[in-house]
């Protein structure tokens, strides 16, 4: 009954580390470049290097590897589905048939491709969850707001979007805690959530969902009141307590990531051709 135990994706893990200290914009840019490379890389060597690079950052950020892997748990089903679909419907014509199920043939090439795609998903979840593990929600949305700022000219409400994201992220753990508390209170009154068919289970959730919604609305009301009481207004003239600062360290981190990304993106075959 510890819900936050199962939902590690999107959690912030406060630590003292060089990765934590980076400017959120640096981290967002670095993650974006890493994500592009994940889609460009097409061979085993490339994925091996990417994995090493990712493991290196995880170690540098002082996040336990097990904790990162736990973030993959919610996508296990998606991974399996991806592999199965890609093995049989990858659209790779020809190739060596390894085995057949009814009319569908699994080729060697299809299997390799399916594994690549699944591994891509793993790397994507790994790198993005590393971003949230090392960046507090407030920093993250500050970063996004700054990066979106140029788009305000085209009518994108950058600040408002960022504020909405901050609030939403901020309340995930609170609502999880609340859900857990209400579930326990109803269990103390004899409610059972893990027995019976789908319909019965869905109905068993009513005593949890009703109080949860009531309290979410109450919290939203209280928060709005508290913000207005402190004269909150979105918009241009807002100053911030913590200005984001792009330091030489950030520049170095960004340059290293981009250079590594570009190098990794060049296929092995090209390197071999370049070699004398």
């Amino acid at each position, binding site marked *: *009954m*510890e819900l*936050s*135990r199962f939902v*590690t994706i999107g959690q912030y*893990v406060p*630590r003292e580390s060089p990765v934590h200290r980076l400017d959120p914009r640096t981290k967002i840019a670095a993650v974006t470049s890493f994500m592009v490379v994940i889609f460009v890389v097409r061979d085993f060597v490339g994925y091996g290097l990417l994995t090493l690079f990712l493991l290196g950052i995880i170690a540098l950020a002082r*996040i*336990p590897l*097990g*904790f990162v892997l*736990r973030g993959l748990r919610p996508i296990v089903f998606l991974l399996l589905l991806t592999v199965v679909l890609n093995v049989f419907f990858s659209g790779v014509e020809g190739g060596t048939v390894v085995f057949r199920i009814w009319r569908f043939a699994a080729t060697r090439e299809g299997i390799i491709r399916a594994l690549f795609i699944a591994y891509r998903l793993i790397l994507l979840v790994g790198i993005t969850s590393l971003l949230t593990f090392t960046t507090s929600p407030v920093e993250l949305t500050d970063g996004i707001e700054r990066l979106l700022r140029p788009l305000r000219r085209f009518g994108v409400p950058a600040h408002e979007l960022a504020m909405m994201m901050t609030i939403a992220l901020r309340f995930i753990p609170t609502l999880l805690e609340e859900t857990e*508390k*209400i579930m*326990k*209170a*109803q*269990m*103390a*009154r*004899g*409610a*059972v959530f893990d027995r019976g068919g789908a319909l019965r289970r869905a109905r068993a959730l*009513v*005593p*949890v969902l*009703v*109080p949860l919604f*009531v*309290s979410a609305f109450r919290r939203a009301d209280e928060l709005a009141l508290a913000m207005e009481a402190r004269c909150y207004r979105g918009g241009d003239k807002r100053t911030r307590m913590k200005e984001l600062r792009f330091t030489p360290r950030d520049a170095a981190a960004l340059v290293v990531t981009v250079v590594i990304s570009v190098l990794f993106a060049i296929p092995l075959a090209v390197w071999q051709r370049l070699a004398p």
Partner: protein
Amino acid sequence: MAFIEVEDLTHVYLRGTPMETTAVQDVTLRIDEGEFTVLIGPTGSGKSTLVQHFNALLKPTTGKVRVGGRDLSDPKTDLRAVRHQVGLLFQYPEYQLFEETVDEDVAFGPRNMGLPADEVRERVRNALEAVGLDPATFGPRSPFTLSGGEMRRVATAGVLAMTPKVLVLDEPAAGLDPRGKAEILGKIRSLHDGAGITVVLITHSMDEAAALASRVVVMDRGRVVMDGPTREIFARADELRAIGLGIPAVTTLVRDLRNRGIPVRTDVLTFEEAHAAIREALGWN
């Protein structure tokens, strides 16, 4: 006879994650049938975590909990039956109400016990009366139209309607006005005195503890640091202050008087006792 037995209980939250915290450590505690125990301790001392083991809402990380002789970690133990015997009322229970009417909400527990409809109706009526709400006026109303104090009483009735042998209450009077406080605590006391229910009550108010409990258990940083008859515990004022707690207001008063040279007894816990002790010291009897 001990009804709840806790042996070497340790509870660690989020074990194996960077947020790991030990909330309860090596606690051994026995609660006898018919006792009125008050559990005090600073915020974060593990009181709420401890009591959630009494009806198996939390499982011990290590250690054992037995309720009515049944081992709660034994997979054959029917935890629902245990929850029918040990009623737990959480902090701010008014936020657990969900039904369309007060009657329906109070009936949630007894219905989950599989009782027949007329028995459920009977219990709902009794429980509402026990918390001082008139079943005829409040029964058909929506719980969301009630005041905070009334909602809290409905939630309390929801637990009482299961007629538990043990009632565990986590700060039942927190956030209520003085009258609401006196009312709800009075009801709890009469349930204990009249129906003989075993009560475990968590509170931050030393006055409440002194007025109600026959036994006080003090927790600090996950451990039980004191456990004994109320009078003995509140005689250890310095130790209590050292962990951020205090002693009841009347006890403080008589201790101050004694420090100023009035030879008054200091082992008083209630207003009446203080009154008598001061009269005696002044020779007014």
